[in-house]
């Protein structure tokens, strides 16, 4: 039951985090120059129409009152209606979240499936051609920004080879490039982290002991080294998953995926406060929950981690 108590404690700790994040964001959005009502109504609107819309959106009230009233509504799961698109924020989010989660999960799975074995292999065969190759790939993937890599892959795989569609979500092939692009950075960190971690572990005394007992290399790696070397990797996966949901903003834009990333970009461009606020709250909660899951998984892998303390 320790883990349940721990999980509850962590979830409660999310509340002050959400309050801090939303308050800072709310203040920044309110202080930014520009008249939202005029933007929504257009240049031909009269002063009365603008005043009426400001009243309707509650913009004529003091900042703190607006914030408190927004948060009270949010607690009741009423995140309001978009100022520029006339849609319900929660409904829209529920429609878009599966796309973002799908692409992010695929990207993470791709990064783990390719990155962890490669990292472990290059640690076992340190200073080999494979190891140098992996280090080169890691440097390359870390250095290339997603928008550039995305466009290059679109040109190569879509225009030159005609293998894949450029954008959209119409078929499973549409997800191949976004998965690779969104997972590229995580892949690099997976290779690096699992390599470093494995190198640390195989130099430890208990591994030497296991070898001295006559265990084969395969046995030593599979039964003794991997489990310990995976703990930092799992933590890294959690951090990267959270980063991937943020990184989806760029990837979704490039590949025209109707996820929350593209929703956030459109909202920021149009200063659509309810959508920006709602989306950021959702992302904060998702990231918080993912981090919690990672901690629980770490405790599962490593019995030395005591959640109660």
């Amino acid at each position, binding site marked *: 039951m320790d883990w349940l108590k721990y999980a509850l404690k962590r979830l409660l700790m999310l509340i002050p985090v959400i309050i801090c994040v939303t308050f800072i964001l709310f203040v920044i959005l309110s202080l*930014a*120059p520009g008249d939202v009502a005029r933007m929504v109504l257009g*240049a031909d609107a009269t002063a009365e*129409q603008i005043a009426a819309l400001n009243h309707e959106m509650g913009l004529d009230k003091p900042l703190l009152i607006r914030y408190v009233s927004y948060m009270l509504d949010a607690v009741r799961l009423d995140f309001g209606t978009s100022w520029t698109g006339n849609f319900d924020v929660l409904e829209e989010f529920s429609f878009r979240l599966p796309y973002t989660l799908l692409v992010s999960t695929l990207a993470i799975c791709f990064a783990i499936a390719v990155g962890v*074995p490669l990292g472990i292999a290059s640690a076992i065969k340190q200073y080999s051609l494979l190891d140098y190759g992996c280090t080169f790939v890691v440097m390359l993937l870390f250095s290339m920004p997603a928008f550039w890599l995305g466009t290059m892959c679109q040109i190569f795989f879509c225009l030159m080879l005609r293998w894949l569609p450029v954008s959209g979500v119409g078929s499973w092939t549409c997800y191949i490039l976004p998965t690779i692009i969104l997972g590229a950075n995580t892949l690099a960190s997976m290779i690096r982290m699992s390599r470093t971690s494995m190198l640390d572990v195989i130099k430890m005394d208990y591994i030497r002991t296991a070898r001295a007992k006559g265990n084969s290399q395969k046995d030593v790696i599979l039964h003794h080294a991997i489990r310990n070397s995976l703990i930092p990797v799992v933590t890294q996966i959690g951090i990267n998953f959270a980063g991937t949901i943020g990184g989806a903003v760029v990837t979704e*834009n490039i590949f025209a995926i*109707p996820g929350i990333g*593209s*929703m956030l970009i459109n909202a920021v461009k149009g200063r659509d406060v309810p959508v920006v606020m709602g989306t950021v709250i959702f992302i904060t909660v998702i990231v918080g929950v993912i981090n919690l899951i990672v901690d629980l998984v770490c405790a599962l892998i490593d019995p030395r981690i005591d959640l109660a303390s």
Partner: protein
Amino acid sequence: MKKVGLILLVALLSMSIFAAGSGESTASQDKDSVTLVVSGNPYRFYALSETGCGGDDNLVLSNVYDCLLCLEADGSLTPALAESYEVSDDGLVYTFHLRQGVKFHNGTEMTAEDVKFTFDKGAAGPLGSALFINYDHCNIIDDYTVEIVLSSPFAAFPYGVASRLGGICSKSYWEEVGDEGYLASPVGTGAYKFVEYVNADHVTLEAFEDYWRGAPSIKKVTIALVADVNTQILGLQNGDYDVMRDPSIEMCQRFEKMNGISTSIGDSTARITMTLNAWSGIGADLNFRKAVQAAINKDDINAAVNNGEATILTVDICPMYGGYPDQIEGVPYDVEAAKEYLASSSYNGEEFAINVQAGTTYETVARVIQAQLMEIGINCTVEAVDNMTYQSKLTERNYDASIINEASSLIDADSISTQFIPGRFGQSYPREAEIYEMAQLGRGLSGDERKELYGDIAQILLDEAYTVPLYNGINTVAYNSQLDGVEAHCLGYYNFRYWSWK
């Protein structure tokens, strides 16, 4: 490891074979559907509600609804739901003779009741004062004849009739579903029925088989909403999209060299202008404004931004506007004259900032102007800001100069007057009341008299150097060469009924 490598290789190869198969199917056309890709986000598909509608919504509105008159790509008007119309001698009464047997998408017939409903509701709504200018009331003569009565004459009224607000809506359907229902499920008499809208993703339209002009050739139109321009370009080249709205001029020239992609470039109804602050700061000095006016080389701007494709404006009125004064000569580019004006002004090296929306072609326009003004000794800077800040500075009149895109749904010289409505933006141009009064007078004139009057207004603007007209906006479209009938429209939308596969 060798085995793992081999398995990976086989997996990759088989994946590529599957992917290649699906790529071919994406590129092949089923010849009765079209995907148009745009970067805007149309979402209001009914013009008569309190939320109004904007430019991007036109992409859908112009195809779901028909107006009494149709605005063609080149800005001309042709008969649509009205077979003909007459204007009374005093210019106050427009009598429209409606086409008989026209069906709404829900099967009901369009009659004079629907026309009256549309005009009455449209005029009372948020867009009424801008598009149904001087509309007073509508009389139903019989089921197929209406009289629209204006409070005072307005020569450009037919453009309002053909605007997005003039799309005829069904009165009986509105009585059944109200504004909310109409917005969610629009019904018009247009060539296409509204099927589906997924926010910021796509809009789907389907051909209306009972359309009064005959069923359109393209049976399904998908408007893909893709924010990233690079993705649009690559998607068009890859065959994912058939038509791309508004590629840059430079991109159009590259498309033209490619097999299978054609382009169309046309004048828009927009004037790209630099407007100057003439009510405070250094801009209040006429000599300074004249120095700025003479120092700007519009050809250089056109070459930098449009590869020289746009029409240079001599006055702040587009040549396609009704009442265009072709008798007026603009102010020539003259660096020496500009330096003389500057020397006689009270300018003392203060900063002169150009307000412009960041990341647009207008930012390039501002940068070219900055270089030209620095050449005559003006300490010019460019304030490239986000759209909201830009608009806010514009409406608060908080700038030294602003690059503006004045697009107009009414293709008429009267559009010039909106900038000079007295008191609209608080303190503004010193002679705004006089200009506005003249423009009001122009609404009731016709022929040469009208041209002369707008010539006088344009001359005041040049003499006072309130604005520096730069160039006529352009609209572009790139499309699959197998498509027929695709043309850049002056208002940036398309009449899909003209499109067909070869």
